[in-house]
Every structure is written in structure tokens, then in C-alpha cells.
């Protein structure tokens, strides 16, 4: 389900439902309305082209705001986080490009990490999500490639289906961990279950997703 970059259900008068989420055009092979293709923009951004950064920002700011808005309710904080992500992108664009990795994946992970750290700070808990990514900045080869992110977006319905196959209890734990940034200990306190149980359930959920994703990313999709 690919749509042109920046077209959203609500912008087109739709309901803004989950099923009508926008999808970024990752491959960037096609210029939209005469604008440079995305891959070209990333290439120029890696060379510190200011205009390319501005175009990328216009292209992705709604999406970043959406990611951050899942976790951060405060409008001003949300704007500051998005600003900080784009500001840091100026340093990260070149090494990510040199590693042949996806800047879009970096934007997603960086936005989430900063949002989670903001939410954790509100709860009086030390930050840590962003520090983890920071420790991996020396070499971005762990990030997905542009081709992998494109394939993930293309096969999003299969990923969604895999998620729905998880037991509801595990899905809830995943939500608390990924979207609310709660550690296993914090989740245990929140749901009133032993930490050991949360740990094994959450790790089982990720294990299930990992195996499903291997199938999603491969040619084999039968039975997913």
C-alpha cells in the first residue's frame, strides 16, 4: 500500500484511522511533483547540502511528529524533540550514508529514543534509550539497509498480521516496552506480575516477531 510521500488519510478528508496510515516512499526512485527523488536528497544531505536537509525535514516532519506524539503528549516538547532529531541528522547523515544504511530507520529509532527519554524524565527515571543509540554511532552498519526498510514497508500488512498473532498479554507488554519505554522491572510493577514472568513473556514476544520477520523478509511468506 504505497502512497505518495506526505499524503495522509486526514489530509485527504479521511478518518485518520490506523488502516489509512501514510507510507513513506522509501525507494525514492520517483520524483514527486518535480521534487528530487528521496535517494538523491539523502545523497545530498550526506554532503551537507542545506537545501536537501530542508526538503527532508519538510518531507518527514509530520511522520516524526507522529512517532514522537505516540509517547510525548506535550506539544512544545514534541516540537523540541523533532528539532533535536533533525539537528542531529546533520551529523549522522554522512556516516549512515557511507555505511549504506537507511536514514529513515535512523530517524524512527532516534525519534523514539528521544521521546522515551523525555517520558522517562517526566517519571523521574534516568534516561537511557538515547544513550544506547549514541553508543552505537561509531559504526552504523547495524542499521537496516535502504532495501530492507523498503521491503519492511512493502510487507507491513504481514508484520501487522504477525503482531496480531501474539497473545494479547504479550502484545500489551510489547506496547508498554516499545511505546511507553518501560523496562521489564517497571512493567512488572505496573501490571503487578513477577519480573521474571514479564522478562520471559516479553522476550518470547520478541523471539516470535524475530522468526516471523525472517519469513517476512525472505521470499517465503506462505503460512504467515
Amino acid at each position, binding site marked *: 500500500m504505497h502512497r505518495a510521500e506526505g499524503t495522509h*488519510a*486526514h489530509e485527504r478528508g479521511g*478518518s*485518520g*484511522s*490506523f*488502516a489509512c*496510515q*501514510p507510507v513513506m516512499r522509501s525507494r525514492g526512485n520517483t520524483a514527486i511533483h518535480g521534487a528530487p527523488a528521496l535517494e538523491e536528497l539523502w545523497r545530498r544531505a550526506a554532503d551537507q547540502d542545506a537545501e536537501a536537509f530542508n526538503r527532508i525535514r519538510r518531507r518527514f516532519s*509530520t*511522520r516524526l*511528529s*507522529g*512517532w514522537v*506524539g*505516540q509517547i510525548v503528549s506535550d506539544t512544545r516538547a514534541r516540537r523540541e524533540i523533532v528539532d533535536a532529531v533533525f539537528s542531529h541528522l546533520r551529523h549522522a547523515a554522512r556516516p549512515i550514508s557511507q555505511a549504506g544504511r537507511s536514514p529513515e*530507520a535512523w530517524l*524512527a*529509532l532516534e525519534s*523514539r*529514543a528521544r521521546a*522515551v*527519554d523525555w517520558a522517562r524524565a517526566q517519571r523521574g527515571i534516568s534516561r*537511557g*534509550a*538515547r544513550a*544506547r*543509540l549514541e*553508543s*552505537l554511532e561509531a559504526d552504523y*552498519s*547495524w*542499521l*537496516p539497509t535502504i532495501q*530492507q*526498510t523498503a521491503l*519492511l*514497508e512493502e510487507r*507491513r500488512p504481514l*508484520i*501487522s*498480521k504477525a*503482531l496480531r498473532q501474539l497473545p494479547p498479554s504479550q*502484545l*500489551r507488554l*510489547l*506496547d508498554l*516496552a*516499545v*511505546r511507553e*519505554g518501560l*523496562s521489564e522491572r517497571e512493567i512488572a510493577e505496573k501490571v503487578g506480575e513477577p519480573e521474571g514472568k514479564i522478562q520471559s513473556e516479553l*522476550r518470547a514476544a*520478541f*523471539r516470535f*516477531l*524475530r522468526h516471523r*520477520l*525472517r519469513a517476512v*523478509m525472505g521470499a517465503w511468506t506462505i503460512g504467515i
Partner: protein
Amino acid sequence: MDHRHLDDIYELYLLGLLPEKESLAIKEHLERRCLQCLARLSEAAQTVYALTLIGWEPRPAKAARGARRRRKKQPHSDRWHG
């Protein structure tokens, strides 16, 4: 560190959700360039990115805000859609 024990934690590591002591041990292990664990880290990054794709919900226009508020009351398990 025996990396066979680490298979299930790289998503949590990347999400910044492991206890500090465990995180530091993994960081040091990765700095020693364990290829198997670097591959797992890369795979975990795909999983986490996939979850951000699925989890993302656009900020609704005014007309849709009521619907969103209603949806928010649903249990967590109903919030994951593609």
C-alpha cells in the same frame, strides 16, 4: 560473555530497556566485534523499525480527534495495526 545467551535481548538493548549493568556488558561485548551478536543487533534493528512502522499513528485532523479519543480507550492490544 557467551553470546548464545544473548539471542533474545538485542531488541531490548536497542530500545534502551535493559538494566544498566546488563547494557554495559553487552556494549563491551559488541565493541569486541562479535560477528554473531552484531548480526543479531542488525536483525533487532529491523524488528524495532518494523514496530515503529506499525505503531505509528498520524495526528488526526480536528474532525477525527473524537474518534481517536474513543480508540485510545481501547486496551493496548487493539492499538497495533498496520
